[in-house]
């Protein structure tokens, strides 16, 4: 017999571009390779890279929520 046509789906979404942000920021050392300003005693190099974790979490969460498949699709 013939197979039933697969449901029309896609992983494409403009929201996916948001993932570039946490990918690119940590790869640009001129943004964070400095001592001052310090935060709680941590040099910029350390606290800013730790802060990028929050950027990563935010971006992936937004993309997940905005591209989540609704039931029945």
């Amino acid at each position, binding site marked *: *017999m013939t*197979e039933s046509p*697969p*449901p029309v*789906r*896609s*992983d494409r979404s403009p929201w*996916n571009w948001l*993932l*570039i*942000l*946490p*990918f690119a*920021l*940590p*790869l640009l*050392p001129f943004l964070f*390779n*400095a*001592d001052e300003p*310090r935060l*709680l*005693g*941590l*040099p910029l*190099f*350390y606290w800013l*890279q*730790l802060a*990028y*974790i929050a*950027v*990563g*979490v935010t*971006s*992936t*969460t937004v*993309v*997940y929520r905005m591209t*989540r*498949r609704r039931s029945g699709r």
Partner: protein
Amino acid sequence: MSEHITEIIVFSVLFLIVSGMGFVAARWRRADNLDSLNEWGLGGRNFGSWITWFLVGGDLYTAYTFVAVPALLFGAGATGFFAVPYTVIVYPLVFLVLIRLWSVSHVHGFVTPADFVRARFGSPTLALLIAITGIVATMPYIALQLVGIEAVLKAMGVTGHLPIVIAFAILAAYTYQSGLRAPALIAFVKDTLIYIVIIVAIIYIPARLGGFGAVFDAAQAKFDATPAPNDGILLNAGNQLQYVTLALGSALALFLYPHSITGVLASRSRNVIKRNMSALPAYSLLLGLIALLGYMAIAAGVQPIGKDNNTIVPLLFDQMFPDWFTGVAYAAIGIGALVPAAIMSIAAANLFTRNIYREYLKPDATDAQEARVSKLVSLVVKVGAVLCILFLDLQFAIDLQLIGGVVILQTLPAVGLGLYTRWFHRGGLVAGWVAGMGAGVVMLYNIPNPATGKEHFGGSAFSLGNLGLDTTVTVYAGLLALIVNLVVAVVATVICRRAGMSDGPDATRPDHYLADAGDPRVKDLDLAAPH
């Protein structure tokens, strides 16, 4: 050793409790029987968000990482902090890729990355290469987990290899019995302990040392006093590119490791994976804080045992914490070694079973036979890891792991790009793999380490000066090898096509990469269609 008696008791009790859990895990989320790779090797392919989070987190952030990363900061400074950008960029990088791998594996029942390559490119040879690469890259990684346990034992004054052999024998026994359910259950305890220890450490230790400002100033003073040009609490012109390329290369490699893929394929649905890509960075934060323990050790004046920098974190805990809490911290590191070691041995065993045993030795193997072979191979793999530590220099395992990161990256064109494009010819991918492997190993061989007096395999920072460029800039060797791999794969693909060489059939369809939980699998489709 007698002054560490409280620590040893706490450590032993926690270790035994966890081992008991490992054996009980066979009954957890009980299946009808464990006699298939879907059950033994992938825990029933039904783990939800929480279990996956603990499992993959416990899998990727290993005991070795928790010991070695602060050791790097202790020894060299800012370059060791690459682990943070590495684990920040990896999740957005693989967010869209892993769900495709999950879908196509769900539809076809793939257990290993080599299974996928076999079906996608119709080439058992290419699949064999991918499988062997995976096994070779994983073996030393398992051996390195022992380093984490050994560092803790050293700090407790326990000498000799017997305790490690016992620990691994217990691990081997419950992995054999319970499969992936064992590390999944143990991961809950391990990670809870680690989170508690690190949160306490990160608040309590700097307070005793006069705050983070004082900690960083002490570290800077130490690096200023050494003659080495590339240490310091910031990067310099010579190692910035190395820092960035190492973070990128490591991120590209992470989810090519068979044990990472095992954790991903064990999850229930695409949404579980996506949610985890947002939640796993909690471990990155933990890792970043752990890394700073290296500087705290400097400020606290910790001297490593022998020349083994891996002992500084255990020693720092011993110096700062009351004995009973030091015991808890040591148990966290020791148990932390068991989770990844179990998953890695399962992943390596699955590769052998699916892509060597079933492909070449017994093509008509039943599910039960596959499961039995995998269980036995998981034992062999762990025995191999212990022998490696007993009879070979520890440095050998560390060298091999360094090579492992570079070689696993060479599977990216087939496994990673293969999820998106079928453009490559199987001959081209084989040629690229050979070239990338060759280039990678040659580069690593030619990297000396003046600090330790090693002439070869002294690190992964390849100096561009070696290529005739007038510079001291260094780059991660794995990324350079991957570029060689890709160029050769593209050229060889064009040549294969022009020469009219036959290409393998593709058993996957575009919609297979978008399938979700509840969609029909290929076996179901076969049954529905008349023959």
